[in-house]
């Protein structure tokens, strides 16, 4: 099986994802941040396609880039303040926070370096069920082994719908 994961596409998508992720947290205007986040989400969908996960890629595009981001843009439209854009965008402890986060990143890279041998490095023995019937297999898993988590997730969504309506309503 020839991998579709050519190095060029991988590095291109990684560049797009990381640059637009940095744009998300540095842009002053929240609409620009939301659009950069859409670019990141689409590059991640490209990663999922390269990893032979077409169903997750489709869910990513439809649900994240199509659903959640529209929700974000609506809320930005509702709460957008002209004066907020002119204010200082970072809080007082931003230096400490950045250093701590980068230290966490260094720790992650250290763990990856030392634990490299604990899993196969390349995709030699890839799982055969991933090739053609990915969506069918995921459906069988969701309604078979993962039946109870699936029902709990549906209940969680119901609670979230009710909660969002209650929260955003003027008077109950």
């Amino acid at each position, binding site marked *: 099986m020839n*991998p579709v994961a050519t*190095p060029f596409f*991988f590095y291109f998508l*990684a560049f797009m*994802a*990381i640059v637009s*992720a*940095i744009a*998300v*947290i540095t842009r002053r205007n*929240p609409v620009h*941040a939301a659009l950069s986040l859409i670019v*990141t989400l689409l590059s*991640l969908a490209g*990663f*999922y396609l390269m*990893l*032979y*996960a077409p*169903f*997750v890629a489709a*869910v990513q595009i439809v649900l*994240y880039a199509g659903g*959640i981001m529209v*929700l*974000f843009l609506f*809320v*930005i439209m*509702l*709460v957008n303040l002209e004066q*907020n854009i002119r204010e200082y*965008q970072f809080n007082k402890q931003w230096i400490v*926070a950045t250093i701590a986060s*980068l230290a966490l*990143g260094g720790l*992650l*890279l250290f763990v*990856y370096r030392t634990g490299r041998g604990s899993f*196969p*490095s*390349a*995709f030699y023995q*890839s*799982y055969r*069920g*991933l090739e053609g019937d990915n969506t069918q297999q*995921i459906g069988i*898993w969701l309604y078979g082994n*993962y039946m109870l*988590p699936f029902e709990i*997730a549906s209940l*969680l969504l119901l*609670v*979230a*719908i009710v*909660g*969002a*309506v209650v*929260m955003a309503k*003027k008077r109950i």
Partner: protein
Amino acid sequence: MTEITTMHYLVVAAALFIIGTIGVLTRRNVVIILMSIELILNAVNLNLVAFSRLWGLHGQVFAIFVITDAAAEAAVGLGIIIAFFRNKETVNVDEVDLLKW
């Protein structure tokens, strides 16, 4: 160029995770903090799907659950933002000190 291994995906996911963490900890605008949380969840998803390439479909199923939770979290979080904005006319988290002593 060399072959792309699992480690490459893990490093990209770690970079996205760290960027998301920095966004959560440093920004004042609460909408952008929620977007950074989405970045963190996506980094986790990338890890799950990369490992599902090695060990079967469990990772992809779990990634779908994570996306579901992200949708629920975004809906509730944005509802809270709207309720908060209606009361205080601001979206900066450091001006939210109602529960601070």
